[in-house]
């Protein structure tokens, strides 16, 4: 009797001890985790979180030319933005730009990746060529395209002239400017997207294709039922990154058009830059930045919701 009660007691003590040890281990793990995170927490705080909070703060104020807050205006900056036809036009241009560039970039890159993943002699050469725009800086690429777009000397207009078509003001005609910038952007982004998609294609197990070959599947059937679904996580990543990149386009606008003609190519990030560093309206610029942030956040959230259903993660 006393023996058994003693045994139960020691068991209880043991259990308590085990709990304590477990707790201590959990604390240790937590500490370790935080330690590992510390560098990125510091970096993110300095370069992302602090500027973001500062931007939100600034968007409620008027500032002087050096960016010091002067008057608290509440939501006035935002209200003014949405009343301004130019800002609305900028948003419209931005969305159009995304629409022009993202699908085209992804589709062209996908096509190139699919043909480049064939096992042919000398395919490495083409892979290098297709991904080469990744190694070209925005500035260099823009200057290169500026020469092509040049109204009199540019190759494009020379070509048009040779087949007897009126020259086009690629960067000066309001009907063409946004399209021209889009083409430049597509060209520049293909390199990266191509590389990502090619990587995705190469990681698809070749056994799947062998099995499909034996089962009598044709090329397009395999493409539709194996390649695209198996590639969907990569495709999803490429699309998300492309969209975010398109929303944040700046360099090529600054070099090619400076937002003109008639604000046709004045995309949001460029508009923010002008508002802040040309017009010295830091408050209004911050408000624009916040609007952009919310738009991207919202779009990405929608994408993830849609993606959940369509993307096959292994």
């Amino acid at each position, binding site marked *: 009797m006393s023996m058994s009660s003693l045994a139960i007691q020691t068991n209880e003590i043991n259990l308590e001890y085990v709990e304590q040890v477990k707790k201590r281990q959990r604390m240790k793990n937590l500490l370790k985790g935080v330690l590992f995170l510390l560098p990125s927490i510091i970096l993110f705080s300095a370069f992302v979180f602090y500027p973001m909070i500062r931007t939100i703060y600034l968007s409620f104020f008027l500032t002087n030319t050096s960016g010091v807050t002067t008057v608290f205006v509440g939501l006035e900056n935002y209200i003014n933005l949405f009343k301004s036809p130019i800002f609305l036009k900028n948003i419209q241009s931005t969305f159009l730009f995304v629409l022009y560039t993202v699908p085209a970039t992804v589709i062209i890159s996908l096509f190139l990746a699919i043909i480049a993943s064939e096992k042919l002699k000398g395919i490495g050469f083409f892979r290098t060529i297709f991904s080469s725009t990744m190694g070209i800086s925005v500035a260099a690429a823009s200057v290169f395209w500026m020469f092509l777009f040049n109204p009199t000397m540019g190759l494009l207009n020379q070509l048009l002239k040779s087949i007897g078509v009126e020259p086009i003001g690629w960067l000066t005609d309001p009907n063409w400017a946004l399209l021209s910038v889009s083409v430049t952007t597509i060209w520049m982004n293909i390199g990266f997207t191509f590389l990502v998609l090619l990587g995705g294609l190469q990681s698809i197990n070749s056994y799947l294709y062998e099995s499909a*070959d034996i089962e009598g599947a044709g090329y397009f059937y395999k493409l539709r039922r194996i390649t695209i679904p198996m590639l969907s996580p990569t495709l999803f990543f490429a699309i998300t990154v492309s969209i975010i990149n398109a929303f944040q386009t700046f360099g090529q606008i600054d070099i090619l058009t400076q937002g003109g003609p008639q604000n046709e190519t004045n995309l949001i990030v460029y508009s923010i830059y002008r508002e802040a560093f040309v017009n010295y309206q830091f408050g209004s610029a911050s408000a624009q930045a916040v609007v952009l942030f919310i738009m991207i956040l919202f779009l990405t959230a929608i994408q993830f919701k849609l993606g959940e259903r369509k993307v096959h993660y*292994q």
Partner: protein
Amino acid sequence: MSQVELIELSKSYEKQKDILKAINLFIKEGEFFVLVGPSGSGKSTLLRMIAGLEEISGGILKINNELVNHLPPKDRNLSMVFQNYALYPHLTVEQNILFGLKAKKVGKQEQQRRLKEAAEMVGLTELLKRKPRELSGGQRQRVALARSIVSHAPLCLMDEPLSNLDAKLRSNMRVQIRRLQKRLGFTTIYVTHDQVEAMTMGDRIMVLNDGKIQQVGRPITLYNEPANLFVASFIGSPKMNIGKAHFLAKHKRLTVENELSITVDPSIARGLPLDRPLTIGIRAEHLLPGTTENTTHYLEVVNVEQLGNETSIAFDVGTELWTAKWPGQWPIQVGQKVPVHLSSEHLLFFDSETGSLIQSASQAKKQEVLVI
């Protein structure tokens, strides 16, 4: 139903020459042909060459008397079960099974009919809506099997389709596959490691080693008259007992591993080259327990395995370990010297240098004659 003909077929990779060397083979219509061999002997490679997944380096491959060396897999009209299943991870079991039928635009009703039939046959009816990653290894293997069943192809290639199943399911599936093959009549080329599978399923067996054919024949022939020492030790479980031997005393007595001395019947010794080094083989079931009258040797036991219905006993004979299989349960201790009966009529004789068979057991031959 297809027949398959291989003429001087060979395979070399850039990195490795002669994976397969001059394979000549004829597989009859509706035959269940089993390919066995140790790991790395080129079984999968041969199968993949027949399927059209692997380039043929040399020789001719004919299916139904037509040259198919140049045809892509889908035009060879066959189905295949892969060693690693090759299921589509993003599709459900049902979609996996129907993948090929959809590609070939088979009618909806026919699809469902075949799906139902195949799913019942391999016991997957409950799992049709699952994804492959939600299945166990054995269940995946059954999906792969079902996928090849629904295609109703006249030639089916199977690369170790049962290797991941548990023993019970495996023997069940063995019967299922064989019955299915008999019913539908498709020609089957079946690769396996498992020589029980090979013996029980095959109409004929081909033993492959190092890319060379060792022997082709009916299972019983391979068991009774292995063409060489490799086949002798590869077919049958436990493996055949083997020992170096030479004749002494006017060809009447044979010394095995310098330890055992066996009296050889003159009718058996007659056909043997008496001056050459020989290797003899004897099956475990022919190493009989000795009675008071017929005991020929006493051997020391080094290991005993009680299997219930039979007892497996290991002896040390020279440098070799010999195994005997005696029906029933024998109360034998390790270290004990037990009487055995070793008769020359059960001996197989091989040439020690070339390894090839000189003379098979006369007892087995007699039995075969009786059967015929």
